[in-house]
C-alpha cells in the first residue's frame, strides 16, 4: 500500500503544476456560471494539447497509455490550482472502447478525446427516466441509413454537441431490453431541434431537450451489434457513476478550498456550526479523493464494468450535497436576500447529483440486489 508518487508520477505532477501555474484559463470561479460551462471546450483543448488529458487511454486514440492512477494526480493538481475540472467523458470512452468495432473506435475516439468533436448522450426521454429500457425513440432502417424519431431530455450540452451517442429502438417487436441499439448520430443536420432547459439554479447551458424528427444516421455509425444497445447503455452508465471517470473530486475540492478561504479571511464572522460545516465538507471531499485513489488503484490491472459504481455514485452524491450545504451555511442569509448568490447556485446545482446518471434510489436498488445479494422485491 503506497499513496506516494512514484518517480514517474512525481515528474508528471511537477510538469502539470508548472503548466497549470502558467496557463490560466481565466474562467469564472464557479461551475454554476453559464460561461464556465460554455468555455469547457476551450479548457478541454488546452488540457489535451498540453498532454494532460486522456491519460490512461490508448495512445492509438490520442491518449497516453498511463496507469489509471495518473487521473488522481490530475484531479488533485487541478483542484490545487483552482482550475476547472477535466471534461467528464471517461464513461463515453469506456462505452465506445468496450462495444465499438475497430472502425468505430478509430473514427470516433480520437476526436472525443482531443475535444475536436463534442459529444452528448441521448439516453433519457420524457417518459423513460429511471425505466430506461422503456424508451420510445425509434431508429428505422432505410437503405444504408437509419431514420431517427423521438424526444430526448436532460441531454447535457446537446446544443453544442457535434455527436450524440443515442439509444434507440431498432426492433419494436422484441422484449423491451432487447430491441435497443446505440448510434453515433451527427447532431448538425436538419431533423434535429434543440430546446434548452433552465436548471433550478438558473444556468441554461447544461440541460437540453432534443427533438429528432426524421434525422438520419448511417448504418455504419451503429456502436456494437443491432440489439446490443442495452448492454452498451449499462457499460456507459456504470462508468458515468464513477467519480474517477468524471473528475468531480477537483470540482468539490475547489469549492471547499474557496469556502475555507472565505472563513479564514474573517474567522470571527462565522459561528462554530458554520466552521464545522466547512470542516465536514473537507472530510467528505477528502474521503472521495481517497476513495478514487483506491478505485483507480484497483484498476491498475484492468477495468471491470460492475455494480461498484453505484456505491461510488452514492458517495459522490453525498459529497456534492454536503459541499453544497456547506456553501449555503457559509453564505448565511446572503443566499436568501441575493438571488445571484453563488453559494445558492452551488447548493441548488448539488441537488441534481442524486438524480443525474441514475437516481440515488436506483443506485440503492442495484447495491442491495447485486452487491449485498438481497432478494429482489
Amino acid at each position, binding site marked *: 500500500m503506497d499513496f506516494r508518487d512514484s518517480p514517474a508520477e512525481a515528474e508528471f505532477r511537477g510538469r502539470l503544476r508548472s503548466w497549470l501555474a502558467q496557463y490560466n484559463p481565466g474562467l469564472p470561479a464557479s461551475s454554476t456560471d453559464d460561461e464556465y460551462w460554455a468555455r469547457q471546450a476551450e479548457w478541454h483543448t488546452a488540457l489535451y494539447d498540453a498532454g494532460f488529458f486522456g491519460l490512461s487511454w490508448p495512445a492509438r486514440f490520442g491518449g497516453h497509455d498511463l496507469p489509471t492512477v495518473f487521473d488522481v494526480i490530475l484531479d488533485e493538481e487541478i483542484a490545487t490550482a483552482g482550475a476547472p475540472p477535466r471534461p467528464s467523458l471517461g464513461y463515453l470512452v469506456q462505452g465506445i472502447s468496450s462495444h465499438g468495432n475497430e472502425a468505430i473506435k478509430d473514427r470516433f475516439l480520437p476526436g472525443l478525446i482531443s475535444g475536436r468533436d463534442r459529444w452528448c448522450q441521448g439516453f433519457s426521454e420524457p417518459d423513460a427516466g429511471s425505466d430506461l429500457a422503456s424508451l420510445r425513440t425509434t431508429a428505422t432502417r432505410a437503405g444504408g441509413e437509419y431514420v431517427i424519431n423521438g424526444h430526448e431530455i436532460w441531454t447535457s450540452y446537446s446544443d453544442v454537441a457535434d455527436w450524440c451517442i443515442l439509444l434507440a429502438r431498432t426492433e419494436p417487436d422484441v422484449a423491451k431490453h432487447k430491441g435497443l441499439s446505440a448510434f453515433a448520430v451527427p447532431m448538425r443536420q436538419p431533423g434535429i431541434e434543440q430546446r434548452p432547459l433552465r436548471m433550478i439554479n438558473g444556468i441554461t447551458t447544461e440541460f437540453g431537450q432534443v427533438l429528432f424528427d426524421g434525422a438520419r444516421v448511417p448504418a455504419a455509425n451503429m456502436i456494437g451489434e443491432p440489439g446490443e444497445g442495452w448492454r452498451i447503455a449499462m457499460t456507459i452508465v456504470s462508468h458515468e457513476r464513477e467519480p474517477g471517470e468524471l473528475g468531480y473530486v477537483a470540482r468539490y475540492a475547489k469549492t471547499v478550498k474557496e469556502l*475555507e478561504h472565505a472563513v479564514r479571511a474573517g474567522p470571527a464572522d462565522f459561528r462554530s456550526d458554520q466552521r*464545522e460545516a466547512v470542516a465536514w465538507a*473537507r472530510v467528505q471531499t477528502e474521503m472521495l479523493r*481517497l476513495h478514487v*485513489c483506491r478505485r483507480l*488503484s484497483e484498476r491498475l490491472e484492468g477495468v471491470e464494468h460492475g455494480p461498484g459504481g453505484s*456505491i461510488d455514485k*452514492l458517495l459522490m452524491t453525498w459529497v456534492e450535497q454536503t459541499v453544497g450545504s456547506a456553501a449555503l451555511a457559509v453564505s448565511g442569509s446572503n443566499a436568501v436576500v441575493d438571488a445571484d448568490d453563488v453559494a445558492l447556485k452551488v447548493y441548488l446545482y448539488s441537488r441534481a447529483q442524486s438524480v443525474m446518471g441514475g437516481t440515488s434510489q436506483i443506485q440503492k436498488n442495484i447495491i*442491495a440486489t447485486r*452487491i449485498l445479494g438481497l432478494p429482489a422485491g
Partner: protein
Amino acid sequence: MDTRDTPEQAELRRSARQLARELGPATVADLDDAPRRERLAAAVRDAGWLELRDDAGDGTPLASGVEAAIVADALGGAAADVAFAGRVLAADLARRAGVSDRAGAVVAFSAAIVDAAIEPGAETARAMYAVDVDEALDSAYVLAPDGAEYRLARVRSRGAPGASGGSDLTRAIRVFPPGSVVHPAETGGLLTGDDLAAWSALGLAITSADLVGVMRGVLDVTAAYATERRQYGVPVGSFQAVQHLLAEARCLMEGSLSVALHAAWAVDNLSPLEARSAGRVAKAYSARAARTVCETAVQVHGGIGNAWECVAHVYLRRALLSSRWFGDDSFQLRELSRERLEVADGLS
C-alpha cells in the same frame, strides 16, 4: 501510487479475518465462553500481533501502521473480545519514549479518553481509564508533564485495581481513581509534541480501522438476517425500504475503508502533524458512519434487534468505544476546523 495491499498485507488481512471469525463470538452467549476467549487471546499473542509496534532494535517499529490497522479491522469485524489496540498503542508510545520495560503495558487516558496527560504531582488529581485491558493489571502508562513536553510515567492505584467494565462488551476498561500513585519512568526520554501527534495518528488509524471492521461485520450479520427473516410471506430484505437502509450502510462502510486505509498508511509515511490530520479525517468520517450503520443494523433486526441476545448491540457498543477513543467525530471536526480555518491563509 498503488493503494492496494502488498501480497504480504493481503495475506495478513485474510488470515486475521479468518482467525477472528473462527475464534470470535458468533453469538452474545459466546461472550461468556471463557475457554474460547482464552483460545482467541492465545492465538492473537502467538501471531505476534501485540508486538507489531514494538522496537525493531533501531527505534523503528516491527510493522507499519498498515499492518496494525489490518489486524484492528479484522478484530472489529468479528467483535473479537480480545485485547489488541491497548497493548499495541502502549508499545508504540513506550518505543517513542525509549522506555524498555513495557511487558503487558497499556495506557490510561483522562476521562475524555482522548489523551493520557496528567497534572504534575506524585498522585493523580482525576480518574484515569485504561482502555482495552485483558488481565488484572495494577499499573498503566500516563504522560507526566515536563516543561512543555511529557515523560512516560506509570500510575498505580492504592487499593485493589479499579473495577473493570465499560459499555463495550468485548473490550474491558479499568479505572485508576483520583489519588492513584504516579511513578516516573526509570528510563526513557522526553516525548515531544511530534511524538504525541504521531502516536495519536496511530490511535486514530487503529480505532478507525476497528470501526470499518465493525461496520463490515454488523452488515454481514444484518444482510443475512434480512434474507432469512420473513414477513408478509417474503424475506424482509426484499422490501426496498429495508434494502435502501442497507445499501446506504454499505456505502458508508466503503467510504470509511477508503479514509481508514490512508490514515493507516500515513502513520509511518507522513509528518506527524499530517498523519494526525489524516487520522482526524478518517475518524470523523468513520465514527459518524459507524453510528449510522450500527443503528441501521439494530433497526433492520426489528424487535429482536432490541433484545440483549441479538449481536447487533455488541457491535454498536464496540463502535461507541472505538468512536470515542482518541476523539469522536464532533471532536475531530472541531480540531480540523481549528487546524484549517483559524490560521493565516496560505494552506493548499
